[in-house]
């Protein structure tokens, strides 16, 4: 319990440091923020009024204190461009990104670990080498390029090759604008729209996991307990299915924490290419309009998700690995 509290405190401290860093980064950016708040024709008085309205005339220390206060009260301030609370923007976009992220992460793991186990069972064979090459190639592909290629296949390709109707997956948007409201067909519609974006994130993520998992599992196979298990007469299949899986679990949990930032970041590109109204797109449009409160808010939301996920992974570890219980 003691270690638990300490780990949670560490995570909290880390979050506070991130909050501070975001403030410093945005403040250190060149240019006067207030100039961006008013039209170019505004007088000096207008600029000063805008500065006062958004609290930009206060000393830096006061602004920092206000920022930290805002974050920890969950408010996050108001968007410059949309004149809307940042927390409301996050409330609208975070579920979109979470849906995309959770589906992809789950599938990434199933696929990645499945491929890794399959490769270990056939280690050294030609197929193993072929799959390794394939995972490196997919891992080398940028997610936005994979996304664009899929869009090309399902638009240009579908028209040229005459895909059957059911195989014509929607390449843009999260839902069909014609279907509003909650119903069974709207859920089916969401799922249909999710196939391509989730496939992109899953393929790129799973390639990384499979690559890492394969080398980790092969390392584990050199451990003494594998030899013991074989010596007492267990089959290779039993050793893999039971001993290897259980011993690999802690590694897999660590991987979950490591893979998350990649999936989160990948969603920025996927949301851009497939035009999904998620956090990544909100961040990009906020960057384009220099909407600093939204930029800061989204950055913090991403960091929060990553820190919490790593915390959960850390808390899960002792449960799976008795050696880590202190």
């Amino acid at each position: 319990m003691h270690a638990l509290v300490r780990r949670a405190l560490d995570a909290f401290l880390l979050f506070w440091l991130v909050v501070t860093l975001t403030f410093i980064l945005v403040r250190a950016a060149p240019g006067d923020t207030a100039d961006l708040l008013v039209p170019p024709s505004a007088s000096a008085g207008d600029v000063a009024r805008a500065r006062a309205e958004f609290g930009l005339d206060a000393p830096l220390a006061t602004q920092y204190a206000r920022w930290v206060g805002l974050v920890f009260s969950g408010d996050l301030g108001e968007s410059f461009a949309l004149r809307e609370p940042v927390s409301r923007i996050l409330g609208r976009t975070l579920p979109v990104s979470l849906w995309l992220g959770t589906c992809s992460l789950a599938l990434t793991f199933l696929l990645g670990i499945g491929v890794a186990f399959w490769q270990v069972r056939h280690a050294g064979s030609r197929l193993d080498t072929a799959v390794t090459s394939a995972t490196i190639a997919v891992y080398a592909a940028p997610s936005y390029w994979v996304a664009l290629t899929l869009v090309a296949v399902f638009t240009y390709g579908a028209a040229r090759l005459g895909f059957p109707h059911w195989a014509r997956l929607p390449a843009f948007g999260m839902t069909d604008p014609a279907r509003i409201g909650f119903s069974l067909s709207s859920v089916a519609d969401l799922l249909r729209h999710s196939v391509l974006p989730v496939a992109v994130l899953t393929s790129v993520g799973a390639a990384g996991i499979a690559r890492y998992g394969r080398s980790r599992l092969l390392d584990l196979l050199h451990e003494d307990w594998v030899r013991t298990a074989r010596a007492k007469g267990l089959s290779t299949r039993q050793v893999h299915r039971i001993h290897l899986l259980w011993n690999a679990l802690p590694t897999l949990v660590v991987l979950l924490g490591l893979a998350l930032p990649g999936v989160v970041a990948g969603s920025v590109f996927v949301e851009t290419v497939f035009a999904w109204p998620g956090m990544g797109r909100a961040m990009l449009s906020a960057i384009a309009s220099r909407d600093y409160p939204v930029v800061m808010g989204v950055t913090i939301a991403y960091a929060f998700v990553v820190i919490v996920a790593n915390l959960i992974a850390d808390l899960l570890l002792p449960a799976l690995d008795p050696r880590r219980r202190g």
Partner: protein
Amino acid sequence: MTRAARLSLWCLVALAVAAAVVPAMSPQDGQVLADGLVEPLGRDGSGHWHLFGTDRFGRDLVVRILVAARLSLAIGIGGSLLASAVGVAVGAWAGWSRGVVDRVAMALADMLLAIPRLILLLLVAALWQPGAGTVVLVLAVTGWMGVARMIRAEVLGVRELPFVQGATALGSRPARLLWRHVVPNAIGPAIVATTLGVGNAIVLESGLAFLGLGVQPPDPSWGNMIAGGRELIVTAPWIAIAPGLALILTVLATTVIGDALRDHLSGHRVVVLADRA
């Protein structure tokens, strides 16, 4: 060196040579050649043949990919080298002096690692003027942490070895001891990380360029070429797909070389999982 690694090395050399030579032989560095969009393997109005076709301004894609290779390779290698240099310096210093310096440096690294690298890149790249120089700098600022941690751990181990005590007894000053004796013995993993980092930097650079926050057109980079083909993805998909193939080949080659280097240097296989775009 494995066969795959040797092949990869030759691929990279060939790409670099082609990037240096081919555009110089084509008129105006691959600027307008045809009179409009040409499909891959198609011929334009004046009968010229185009392997990957042309973009909508009639620029031959092969030549343009090679021109872009100059910037993409330079940024990838430069960004990764700079990040590793910072990482080695910070990690060595932290591991050597321990105490407060170590705590502060590692807290800073943890903090930067808590934000997904791409988001950090977006944040920094967006706030400063976009361009090739900024991208290299930003790649260094957001990429030094892994190397720093690795070097720190190595230095902490190496500093306890007998030869360090020997050098101290012979009157070597701490700074000299660190740079001439400890760091060279701890640098192995950093070399591997730098090699693997090149591919990573190329992917991230292209990602920034794709989002309009990296290298700005008309300077070609693989990322902004792909971005340029995005609008025509439905009618002329090859414009976006061709530069991506060049990018994948390059990143694939650096990964294979990095893996071979690691197997050679450390004798065992450890795969590093990195944030990708």
